[in-house]
C-alpha cells in the first residue's frame, strides 16, 4: 500500500555517502593526490581550466578528483566556485607576441623568424600503447636540452599584415563585453563570440569546426600559426601609476589564414580566424579559430549558407556544456505532474477518437 513517499533526505544522504565511497574506489589501491593529477593529467587539468574559465591548476585538479574524472562535472565545480570570487581588477591585455613559447608551428611558411618549435606534442607519435607505462617507476631517459633562443617570435599574421596581405584588425578601443556578468544578447560582437567560444565545450566546437571543413560553411583555413607558452599577466596599480606582473599563465593561441576573394570595396586579401584558450588546449584553439571565421560571414559580406557553424544564435546558445548538461540531465527529475496532465489528455483524446470510429475488439476489451 502506498502512503506518500517520504525519505527524500535520507536517500540523498545515503547516495552521497555511496558516491564518496565509489570515488575512493578500492582502498587497497593508493589514493590519487591532487598534485599527481595536476602534474600527470595536465591536459585534463587544462581543459577544465579553459572551460571553467578559471586559471588555477590546483583547483582544476581538485575538481577532477572530486568529479571522479568526469571533466564536464569538474568544469561545473570550477564555474560554480569562480562565480563567487570577488573581482579586484582587470589585467591589461596579455601580449602573446611576447609569449615564452614551448611550441610554435606555422603551416603556411616552411621557416620563419623564431623558427618552428614542435614542443611537447603527440603529433608524430605512433599511437601504439606503451606497455612500459603500465610498469610503474621506470626512470625517464633525460630529454635533450638546448639554450633557449631569446630572439623575438613575431606573429605570422603580423608578417602578412606588413604587406597588407591580411585584413587589418585595428584596436577599436571598445571595452569587450563580459559574458559572465551580462546576459548574452544577440547579435553579439566578435569579442563576445570569442569569449563564448573560449569557454565552450571542446567537443561541440570540434564538431562544428569539422563541419566547416566538410563543406558546411567552408572557410578554407590554413593554420597560420599555433603557439603555446607562458605569458605575463600584468595589472595596472592605480597607486603606482604603472603595470606590474602579478603572475604568469599558459595560453594556446591559433591564428588561421583564410581565403577571401575581395569585394567591391576591398581588394583580395586573406582573412583571419582566431582562437585563444587557457592552458595547453591545442585542438580547442584550432577549432575555435575555424568557428570564429565561419561566424564572421556577415561582417565580411559572405553568403549565409544555412550552415550551423555560421549561425551565431545556434552556436552561442548551445556551446556551453555546463548549461547543456544541466538542462539535458534535468529530465531525470520528477515530472509526474506534467506527465499526469499529458496522460489525462491522451486518455481523453483516445476515448473521443475511439468513440467516433467503430468499436474495435481491443477497445471493447478496455
Amino acid at each position: 500500500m502506498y502512503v506518500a513517499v517520504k525519505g527524500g533526505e535520507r536517500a540523498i544522504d545515503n547516495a552521497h555517502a555511496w558516491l564518496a565511497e565509489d570515488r575512493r574506489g578500492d582502498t587497497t589501491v593508493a589514493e590519487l593526490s591532487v598534485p599527481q593529477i595536476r602534474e600527470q593529467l595536465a591536459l585534463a587539468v587544462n581543459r577544465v581550466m579553459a572551460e571553467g574559465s578559471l586559471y588555477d591548476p590546483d583547483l582544476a585538479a581538485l575538481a577532477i578528483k572530486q568529479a571522479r574524472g568526469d571533466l564536464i562535472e569538474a568544469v561545473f565545480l570550477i564555474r560554480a566556485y569562480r562565480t563567487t570570487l570577488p573581482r579586484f581588477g582587470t589585467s591589461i591585455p596579455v601580449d602573446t607576441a611576447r609569449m615564452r613559447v614551448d611550441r610554435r608551428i606555422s603551416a603556411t611558411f616552411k621557416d620563419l623568424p623564431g623558427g618552428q618549435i614542435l614542443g611537447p606534442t603527440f603529433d608524430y607519435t605512433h599511437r601504439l600503447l606503451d606497455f612500459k607505462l603500465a610498469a610503474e617507476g621506470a626512470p625517464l631517459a633525460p630529454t635533450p636540452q638546448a639554450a633557449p633562443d631569446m630572439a623575438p617570435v613575431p606573429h605570422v599574421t603580423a608578417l602578412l599584415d606588413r604587406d597588407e596581405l591580411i585584413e587589418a584588425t585595428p584596436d577599436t578601443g571598445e571595452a569587450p563585453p563580459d559574458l559572465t556578468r551580462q546576459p548574452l544578447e544577440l547579435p553579439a560582437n566578435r569579442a563576445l563570440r570569442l569569449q563564448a567560444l573560449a569557454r565552450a565545450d571542446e567537443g561541440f566546437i570540434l564538431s562544428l569546426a569539422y563541419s566547416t571543413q566538410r563543406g558546411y560553411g567552408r572557410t578554407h583555413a590554413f593554420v597560420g600559426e599555433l603557439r603555446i607558452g607562458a605569458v605575463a599577466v600584468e595589472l595596472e596599480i592605480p597607486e603606482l601609476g604603472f603595470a606590474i606582473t602579478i603572475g604568469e599563465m599558459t595560453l594556446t593561441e591559433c591564428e588561421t589564414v583564410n581565403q577571401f576573394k575581395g569585394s567591391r570595396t576591398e581588394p583580395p586579401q586573406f582573412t583571419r580566424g582566431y582562437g585563444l584558450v587557457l592552458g595547453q588546449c591545442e585542438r580547442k584553439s584550432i577549432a575555435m579559430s575555424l568557428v570564429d571565421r565561419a561566424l564572421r560571414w556577415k561582417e565580411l559580406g559572405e553568403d549565409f549558407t544555412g550552415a550551423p557553424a555560421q549561425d551565431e544564435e545556434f552556436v552561442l546558445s548551445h556551446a556551453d556544456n555546463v548549461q547543456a548538461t544541466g538542462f539535458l540531465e534535468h529530465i531525470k527529475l520528477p515530472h509526474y505532474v506534467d506527465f499526469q496532465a499529458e496522460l489525462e489528455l491522451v486518455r481523453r483524446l483516445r476515448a473521443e477518437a475511439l468513440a467516433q470510429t467503430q468499436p474495435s475488439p481491443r477497445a471493447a476489451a478496455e
Partner: protein
Amino acid sequence: MSDDAYNFAYLDEQTKRMIRRALLKALAIPGYQVPFASREMPMPYGWGTGGVQVTAACLTPDDVLKVIDQGADDTTNAVSIRRFFQRTAGVATTESTAEATVIQTRHRIPETPLTEGQILVYQVPIPEPLRFLEPRETETRKMHELEEYGLMHVKLYEDIARHGEIATAYAYPVKVEGRYVMDPSPIPKFDNPKLSDNPAIQLFGAGRESRIYALPPYTQVVSLDFEDHPFRASKADHACDLCGAAESYLDEVITDDAGSRMFVCSDTDFCTGRQAAGHRGRLSPLSKEIA
C-alpha cells in the same frame, strides 16, 4: 566547503542587487521577460537555478521558506534546494503553505490559496512561450515587441482541427493584462486559473536562459482560448484516495503490475492537512491515526 565563506543566501550583495533590479522591472511590466546576468549556481542548470537566484535575492533572515517540486515538499530536488537555503541563509523552513513567506515551486501552484505578502517563486525551464514555434530568440523578442501572436493562435487552432481540442496539458500559454503572452512554467493547466488575480507576488526565474518575469498581486491572467473552444482546467476525474479531496490536482500511482492504481493529491501539505483534519479517502488507512 566552509559555509562562512559565502554571503547570506549564497549570492553576493552586488549580484542580489542586479537580480532585484530585474525583478522590479519585471513587476513593472507584467509578463515581460527581463534579461538578467544569471550566475552559475552550485546546482545544475535546469534544476532550478533561476528560481534559486530569485529566492536568494528575495530572502531576508526573517523569512520562512517552503520548497516544493511537483507539489511535494519531500521530492529529492525540493529537499536539496531547501537544504541549500538552510545551509547558506539559515532561514526557517516549513512545509505549510500558509506559514511560508517565500515558496519556491517547480511545476505546481499550491492548493491552499495564497495571501498578500507571500511570494511564489517559479522555476522556469524555457521562459519563451513562442520557443517551440520559433526557435530564434532574436525573432521571438521581435514578436513580443510587435504583439505578434498570430503564430500561437494558429498553433492552438491547428490543435483543435486535429484533435478537437487544444492539446496542451501543461505550460499552457497565458496572456497577461491583455499584453504579453507568457509561459506559466510547466504547471498543469489545472493550475492556470490560480495565476490570475492572485494576492501573492509571483516571480519566475529562468537561470539557464537568463530571464526573469513576474506577476504583481491581482494581475489579470487569461489562458489563451477561442470563444467556441473555451479554456478548461482539467485533472484526473477522481477524488484523492488518501484525503478524499475532489478539487485538488492528483498524481496517479501505480500500485501493482496488474493495472491497479490510486490517485493522491500532488500537494502533500494540502493532503496531510486534510487527513489531519479527519478527511478520509477511498484507500485511507482508517485504523491508523495520522500524526
